């Protein structure tokens, strides 16, 4: 428990440093480059109490978290399968690299057509981004699995499901964790950007409007909201994985 508190305190220190850098940037460069943190927080507070934040957040939250969950699950499943079946892996790897590397402008119209401008286009964009990130980590994780343990499981006669639960999943957590952290951060960013670009509603739509109004503090207030939500999601979704890894890792012996 004290370790957890200490970890949290260090994390807050890091975020405080970031806030300080922001303040210094504002002081040096003026409000047309970086609005002040104080003003931004004030605006954010206003967004929350006037009830503007709620509905926008609901839309974007569904896009970001829904897109993340779909993309992460598909990516992990595909990555594990591809890792276990060499030809499938060799076939899919370049396809997913392309998927990751094609700029969204290539299929923004396609997404608009398929999902409609107010529909699931942002969630689709999020999934498309998350899927290959998670795929590639799961794929590599499977390749890097401990073959001796797999042999043991085979000799013992464990079913694929039992093996997955007892040996593969614990081994996958380590490579998956950073990929999921990356993917989660991208979910919010990409979801918001897709809303900005797609003329959608949600936080991205709000940001687009504030930007059209050249209202920098307003823009930053929404971004701050996004970042806060991202940190909350990171805490809720990934913290259990981190804890498992911290406690189950063969630590250097006590004493």
């Amino acid at each position, binding site marked *: 428990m004290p370790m957890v508190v200490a970890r949290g305190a260090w994390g807050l220190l890091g975020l405080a440093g970031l806030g300080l850098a922001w303040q210094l940037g504002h002081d040096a460069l*003026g409000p047309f480059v970086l609005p002040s943190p104080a003003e931004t927080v004030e605006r954010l507070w206003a967004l929350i109490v006037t009830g503007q934040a709620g509905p926008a957040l609901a839309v974007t939250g569904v896009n970001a978290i829904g897109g993340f969950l779909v993309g992460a699950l598909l990516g992990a499943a595909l990555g594990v399968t591809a890792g276990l079946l060499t030809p499938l892996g060799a076939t899919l790897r370049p396809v997913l690299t392309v998927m990751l590397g094609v700029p969204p402008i290539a299929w923004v119209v396609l997404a*608009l057509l398929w999902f409609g401008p107010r529909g699931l286009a942002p969630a689709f964009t999020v999934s498309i981004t998350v899927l290959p990130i998670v795929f590639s980590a799961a794929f590599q994780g499977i390749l890097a699995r401990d073959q001796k343990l797999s042999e043991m499981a085979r000799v013992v006669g464990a079913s694929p499901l039992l093996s997955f639960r007892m040996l593969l999943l614990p081994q996958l957590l380590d490579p998956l964790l950073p990929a999921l952290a990356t993917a989660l951060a991208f979910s919010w960013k990409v979801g918001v950007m897709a809303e900005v670009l797609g*003329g*959608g509603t949600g936080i991205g*739509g709000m940001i*687009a409007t504030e930007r*059209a109004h*050249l209202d920098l503090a307003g823009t930053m207030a929404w971004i701050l909201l996004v970042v806060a939500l991202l940190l909350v999601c990171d805490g809720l979704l990934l913290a259990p994985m981190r804890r498992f890894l911290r406690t189950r890792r063969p630590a250097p012996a006590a004493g």
Partner: protein
Amino acid sequence: SRPVESLEILGAPNAATIVLVRLLEAGGLDTAAPGATFRLWRDTDELRAGLVSGRSRLITTPTHVPANLANRGMPLRLLCILSMGHLSIVTADDGIRSFADLRGKPVVGFFRNDMPDLVFRAIAKREGIDPDRDIALTYVQTPMEAAQMLAAGRAATAILSEPPATAAIMMAQQQGRTLRRAVSLQEAWGRHFGQPRIPMAGVALHRSLIDDSPEILAALRAGLPGARDWVLADRKGAAALAEQRMQMRPAVFERSLDHLHIDVAPARAMKGELETFYKAILDLSPDALGGRLPDGAFYLDM
């Protein structure tokens, strides 16, 4: 005062910018700002970066942008209007003949909550139409996507600016489909706000540039009308210049010239119409202008 060194002119990606490009090209700024360069901006971020850094203190822009920035504390001045509006409703639907016909129709808009959208809404309001209820309005980010959807037959009606409107019509033609400009928003505007034109884009300067070099202001005043006359007279030459300096398709540019409503009108002289325009925006969305009308010093004379 000394001539201004290394001035970077930022031009809005709007065809009317060609007038300022012509002035620069014809040497009209050579004495006041030797070595001045020209570049298009695609995003207000670039504009802000240019203005804050002091690299770009002469710009062409939609007229609500400098008003907004001035109200938020950046000392910008509007010199003149270059475009009297370039928005139209382009459609493949024969049933649409007037603004009122849009009622109940699906329409694609762009730049949601930004100026083109606000102009459309201001007119709709005067027409007695609630765009969010009476029109099936959806949005894409840029006019290019709207044009693309029109040309591909994936949307029947869209609000478009120039030159994307012209480009969409030409592309559809190649595919054997007919698109037409059903409504000029300028004319619709005229029915409700006085004049059948909208002072939509112009030339603006940072005050420090005026202070540092009154000569530039003088050169602009002297040169812009002639540049406009050249553009309107030598359409082929203007199109070639647009291709060279603004990466625009000459054929499209030439055909869209008729719909650009290029002019050079002093801001001071246009103050009344500008304020009508600004008020219409303020009515709908005060934040889009920083909450108020710009004060009198904002409008320069030629």
